[in-house]
């Protein structure tokens, strides 16, 4: 049950892929090359990576408006992601969904979601289907602290527990709902205190420590897969960039000191330091990984830039079902 070097490298790779994709997306947004909003996942990489690293390809996840990290961690394709962000026809949603609707059903990624709290009921539906089919698949609902104040989350958690479904509720508690600190919107500090109210266990992990998140995910996913029902994992984490975009937009809702303190606990660098200390990796090996993945990002940007925009005759394609919804 110990976390082998191969698993450590796998978790590291997932995190670096997220970091590089998001930083590239941020630069493109600043250069006005991306239409629409952009919510960057930088800082929270350990959560998506630690949890998706415990899943199989045919397990399901639902995501949030800050959803790139979840798809990347599940194995998303850089080219199709970057093309979608640029609104190109080669993108995941043929350029018509953009950042907040990105999905890949072949990877069990059931979609980012622009509506806060809306992903959890979808994950419950997937978990219900998985239980019905009986192939041992698990669903994970990613959501933020703010989403737990939304009715849809309560209904989802309640139904998942009532039906004893194979699901993990993964809360990314980054302490802010958009620009509002958590303590202005709820009277409790730990989201996990809500779990018992539905009848499921809930645990807190350090969301800046991918090993800690992964250890919790292994337990919760194994429990769900074995018919043990839902769990809630609350990962205490932090987003390094603003709610949306890269710049602060002049909204000073977090102190520089607070942001700097969280950045000291960068999940990628702390894992690298520990792996080097344990003589599992060298700095050179990590430099090579970063260089290889940077190259993938550059390729994806070029792919997206060179791809065509969707043509006007595609506006209604894939929007309405031609055969009555079946």
């Amino acid at each position, binding site marked *: 049950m110990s976390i082998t070097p191969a698993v450590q490298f796998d978790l590291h790779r997932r995190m670096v892929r997220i970091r590089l994709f998001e930083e590239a997306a941020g630069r493109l947004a600043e250069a006005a090359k991306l239409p629409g909003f952009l919510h960057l996942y930088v800082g929270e990489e350990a959560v998506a990576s630690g949890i998706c690293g415990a899943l199989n390809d045919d397990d399901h996840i639902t995501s949030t408006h800050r959803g790139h990290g979840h798809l990347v961690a599940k194995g998303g394709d850089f080219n199709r992601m970057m093309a979608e962000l640029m609104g190109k026809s080669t993108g995941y949603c043929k350029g018509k969904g953009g950042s907040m609707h990105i999905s890949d059903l072949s990877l069990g990624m059931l979609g980012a979601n622009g509506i806060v709290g809306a992903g959890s009921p979808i994950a419950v539906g997937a978990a219900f289907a998985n239980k019905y089919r009986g192939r041992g698949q698990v669903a994970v609902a990613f959501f933020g602290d703010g989403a737990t104040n939304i009715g849809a989350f309560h209904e989802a958690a309640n139904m998942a527990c009532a039906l004893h479904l194979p699901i993990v509720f993964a809360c990314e508690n980054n302490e802010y709902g958009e620009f509002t600190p958590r303590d202005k919107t709820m009277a409790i500090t730990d989201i996990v205190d809500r779990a018992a109210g539905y009848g499921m266990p809930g645990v807190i992990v*350090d969301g800046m420590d991918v090993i800690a998140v992964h250890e919790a995910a292994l337990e919760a996913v194994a429990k769900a897969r074995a018919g043990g029902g839902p769990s809630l994992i609350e990962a205490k984490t932090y987003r390094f960039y603003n709610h949306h975009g890269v710049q602060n937009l002049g909204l000073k809702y977090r102190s520089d000191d607070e942001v700097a303190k969280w950045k000291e606990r960068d999940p990628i660098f702390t894992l690298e330091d520990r792996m080097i200390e344990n003589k599992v990796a060298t700095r050179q090996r990590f430099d090579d990984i970063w260089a290889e993945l940077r190259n993938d990002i550059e390729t994806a940007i070029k792919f997206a830039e060179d791809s065509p925009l969707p043509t006007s005759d595609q506006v209604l394609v894939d929007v309405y079902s031609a055969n009555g919804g079946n």
Partner: protein
Amino acid sequence: MSTVGIIVNPNAGKDIRRLVTPATHTSDVTKVGIVRRAIVAAAESGAERILIAPDTHRLGRRAADGLDAPVEIVDEPVTGSRFDTIGAARRFWKEQVGAVIALGGDGTSRDVALGWPDAPLIAISTGTNNVYPVAVDGTSAGAAAGLVASGIVSVADVARRSKKIVVRVDDRDSSVDDVALVDLAFIDADFIGARAVRDPSTITAVVAAVATPASTGLSSIAGRIHPVDRWESGGVFVRLGAGGRRVRVPLAPGSFTTIDVAEVRPLAEGESITLSGRTILAFDGERDLAVSPDGTVTVRVESSGPLVIDVERTLVRAASALAFDHSEKDDHGH
């Protein structure tokens, strides 16, 4: 001035062991309720001043909200780490607190012992598998603390000196001194990770100061082979591995496993034992410190832990001394 100090660890009772065992979840509301009852009871029982350590979740402040009691939230930095408890305990020592109430697990009491080694302590269990703290309601704990702090009951009559495990780690670039109150385990792992010891096969050795067959957790390994109760001197060392006895132990609440014990060695008071090489040290059940292949860990068990106040004995003494009889002051607001 008779002063009671209260520390509440907001992080206790919420770790990953709840995923695989039926361990108790202790919510913030539960903790706030215990502290609130302790405040009322301490004020009722002679405390003229109640100091509360600040915490990230503002549990102490919430507990005191609206109460007519002489409560002060002490002005100490809040870091969200164990240093909050260590700092608060040290502050309570400076403030000449007469009795400390600490809500948490074994690890919380450990941090109190670091901040104030001689603390007169009532440790209330709100953790996972607690050996050192006890399950006692805030009402009784607060009353006992108030009675001791005010001198109505003498601390010497109702408190006993507990043990601690003194740990020194000499590593490549640094040395670390630390303590545990129940057990120190050596774990074959690369990471501190989620802190709880998940995999029994990674435990290589345990030093226990308290090891009873009634314990849950790492100390239960020694407790089921060579019991050492909390008041007798010395401790016990067990090395895990094949070739010796095989015992069934509750390593976590409601969760039993078979452990192979290769060696059992009683440790006399103050007797040192040294282990070398790469390991992760788990203090009182939680992975906390990585030791490199060049490091050495020296451990001894001493009778120099906090003064543990016996709540029931305190209340019995007070009753014998007619301390609960209604007096005139009770007609004026008490």
